């Protein structure tokens, strides 16, 4: 083995992987099993460095599975030595199986990560290209871990908190493990209570009605408008199509006070109809913009043929344009549905009557010191699950909608 920048970089990335692996595994063990584990960071870091050093012992071409096996064992031995046999600050007699699994997982993860980063790297002096390669690979790997953690952790906490009870939560906030022996009834206690005592079934219904109606109204308004902008010639056409998105830069909060004042006096404030007037107004411009872009891309010859054959303009739209534009309609509908479902500001300002609360408004009403927090989280889960299911189901359309319309958020 030659000693050079390759070894130095290898040791550094090894340190990093070891640190990440031991910290993540320790925290995950605690969160999932409820064990009071405190990972010894230095043990993991050293294990990672040892692993990298063993891999770099041989030139890239000569690395055998046996070498990786030795490197794998090296992590375990180094960790055990540094932490005096307790890498999670737990006596090994305590849940030894889980601990052994944790250590094995760390060693495996570190070996794979080091192998991926150092696959064609030797220990001697490296060229600039190879150094960059190591840095980029390390950054990428770190990015995967980082983004996965920041995205998964909040959602994991949300779901698990909703399944616990107040006492356990206060006793040990780290213990998010679920006691599956308690039976479904007590596990889903918060959900049952929300649906029976807090009227969440009704909120769910109102949210669905409001969102679906918003989609229908938006389509009814934007389809003819988009067609006119895309296909018909009229004065001011270009000005209109380029300025329609300006509406998007108007802050909703500026509209709240006048709308609140006017809707109060008209008696529209505390009503579903009031919401159904406001929501489409915010979604129609962008729906129109997205649809007109799609309509322009459709072949005009088909429509002209339809006109020749005696169809009216409306007939052409209904029988030719819309069937061709189904993917775009799906994108727009999903995107509008998402906006309406997630809308908070106007629901919060306008609705006082619990009989017509949308889910967003209903979850806010749970945010008080009298309502236990697992109820609040259960409410959050109820609001999130439908939209995430729809999103995963129709991901392709929604992603198209997001990119085409540049959703406001």
């Amino acid at each position: 083995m030659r000693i050079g920048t390759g070894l130095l970089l290898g040791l550094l990335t090894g340190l990093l992987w070891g640190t990440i692996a031991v910290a993540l595994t320790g925290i995950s063990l605690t969160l999932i099993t409820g064990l009071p584990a405190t990972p010894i960071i230095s043990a993991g870091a050293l294990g990672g460095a040892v692993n990298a050093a063993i891999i770099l012992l041989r030139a890239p071409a000569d690395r055998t599975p046996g070498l990786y096996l030795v490197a794998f064992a090296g992590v375990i031995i180094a960790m055990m030595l540094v932490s005096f046999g307790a890498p999670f600050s737990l006596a090994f007699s305590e849940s030894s199986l889980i601990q052994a699994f944790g250590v094995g997982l760390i060693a495996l993860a570190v070996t794979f990560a080091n192998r991926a980063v150092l696959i064609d790297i030797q220990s001697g002096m490296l060229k600039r290209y190879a150094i960059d390669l190591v840095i980029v690979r390390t950054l990428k790997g770190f990015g995967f871990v980082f983004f996965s953690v920041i995205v998964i952790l909040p959602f994991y906490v949300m779901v698990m908190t909703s399944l616990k009870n107040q006492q356990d939560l206060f006793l040990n906030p780290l213990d998010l493990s679920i006691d599956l022996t308690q039976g479904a009834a007590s596990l889903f206690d918060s959900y049952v209570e929300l649906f029976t005592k807090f009227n969440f079934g009704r909120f769910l219904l109102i949210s669905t009605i409001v969102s679906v109606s918003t989609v229908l109204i938006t389509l009814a308004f934007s389809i003819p408008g988009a067609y006119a902008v895309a296909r018909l010639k009229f004065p001011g056409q270009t000005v209109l199509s380029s300025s329609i998105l300006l509406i998007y830069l108007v802050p909703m909060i500026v509209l709240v006070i006048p709308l609140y004042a006017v809707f109060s006096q008209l008696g529209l404030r505390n009503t579903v109809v009031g919401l159904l007037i406001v929501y489409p107004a915010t979604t129609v411009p962008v729906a129109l913009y997205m649809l007109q872009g799609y309509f322009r891309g459709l072949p005009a010859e088909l429509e002209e043929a339809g006109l020749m054959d005696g169809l009216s303009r409306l007939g052409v739209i209904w029988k030719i344009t819309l069937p061709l534009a189904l993917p775009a309609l799906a994108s727009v509908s999903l995107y509008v549905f998402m906006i309406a479902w997630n809308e908070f500001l106007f629901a919060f300002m306008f609705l006082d009557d619990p009989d017509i609360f949308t889910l967003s408004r209903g979850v806010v009403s749970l945010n008080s010191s009298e309502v236990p927090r697992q109820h609040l989280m259960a409410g959050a889960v109820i609001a999130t699950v439908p939209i995430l299911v729809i999103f995963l189901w129709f991901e392709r359309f929604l992603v198209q909608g997001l990119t085409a319309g540049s959703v406001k958020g």
Partner: protein
Amino acid sequence: MAPSKSTAQTPATSPPRKGKLGPMARREARLALWMLAPTFLIVMGIVLFPLLANFWISVKPVTLSDLRPPTPVVSERVRGDFEIAGQEFEIQYRLRNSSRDGDITDVVLTDTLPAGITVIDPGDVCTVTGAEVRCTLDGLPAGERTRLKMTAVSDESFAANPVSPRDSEPTITGTSDNILTNSEFTLDNFARIFDSHEFWSVLWVTITYTVFGTLGALVLGLFAAQMLNKPFAGRSIIRGLFLFPYVAPVIAVAFTWVILLDPFNGTFNAILQRMNIADEGVNFFGQRDIPIDVFGLTIDFPLALATVIAFEAWRYFPLSFLFILARMQSISSDMYEAAEVDGATPLQQFWHISLPQLLGILSTLFLLRFIWTFNKFDDIFLLTGGAAGTRTLTVDVYEQGFALSNLGAGAAVAVAIFILLLVFAVFYFKFVHREDS
């Protein structure tokens, strides 16, 4: 935006005489107008009209309670025995103004008396025609209570089958001055918000939040897009996962963060303590400043504001990620191959090929996200309610208008937001036009 104005852009196919449309073209334009009319109406009514109305409200001394206009309230009493024929009794109307500070004018009260009752003395303001009673008052000042008395007598037929005169509800109407439509104006709202020391700190917080929130979301998005640029197994799953923070309702993720970062029994604080990073729970959303030692120099780090900015970056990185990824996929691989042959390292390729290609989308995203973050209300309102040095202009609108019930002052802050936004928009269009050319 008015479609009837600019006729200059009628295309070459239209008749040669400028400004005149042929009958076919005119029909087409009329059809287009009809098809656009619903969109126009709803946008006018719900977006443009409120924008203007906001200016109007900002120069009005209007509070939340003014939205309930003063109304006259009446209750009817009967004194004396009306069931005995020939006995005189008194009918009283007690009038009250529901508001303590709004006058009511032209108050008219009408009531129907049961058959068989004759009014002997209708009092000064009431007249009786048949069974109909009609009383008119010139005005009912704020908070005033008054009684109208009538003396009446019942006859034999009534006494045989008595019904209370109270059974028929009196109706009352009046005109009150609506603060929203009268011609009383004031500049107090603007004086109040600009005089307060608070406004400038709110402005400062808004700008910090906007700049760092936008940059954070962009940098995270760029990082994530780099990771997913090359295809690998499970890429679409990861992409879907990365979009979760953006797709989930703000209400759910905001409350999750609040509970996750709870200083006493939040999971994140428990992790920090377990890893011996922090000695005691850190109140991320409640603590304004935290002293940090940097080389012996103690600086106050705005903790709550930084946490809110972190939330903003977390929630909106998926959007920039999606756009940057879409743009990166469209960069032709030839350039990278050529660079590879020339010996350019991965970091050099990123710096000299990817980044210049992405500059357009990055600057557009920056400006759009800048404006949207500036307009953002929900996130901070749900996370901190504007406490601990996180109050932005948008939260201030709510605070002034609804928490302090001074709609006028709230509207004044909204006007300030709108004007700042106009400045951004002008800048944006200048910038975009330069991009195009």
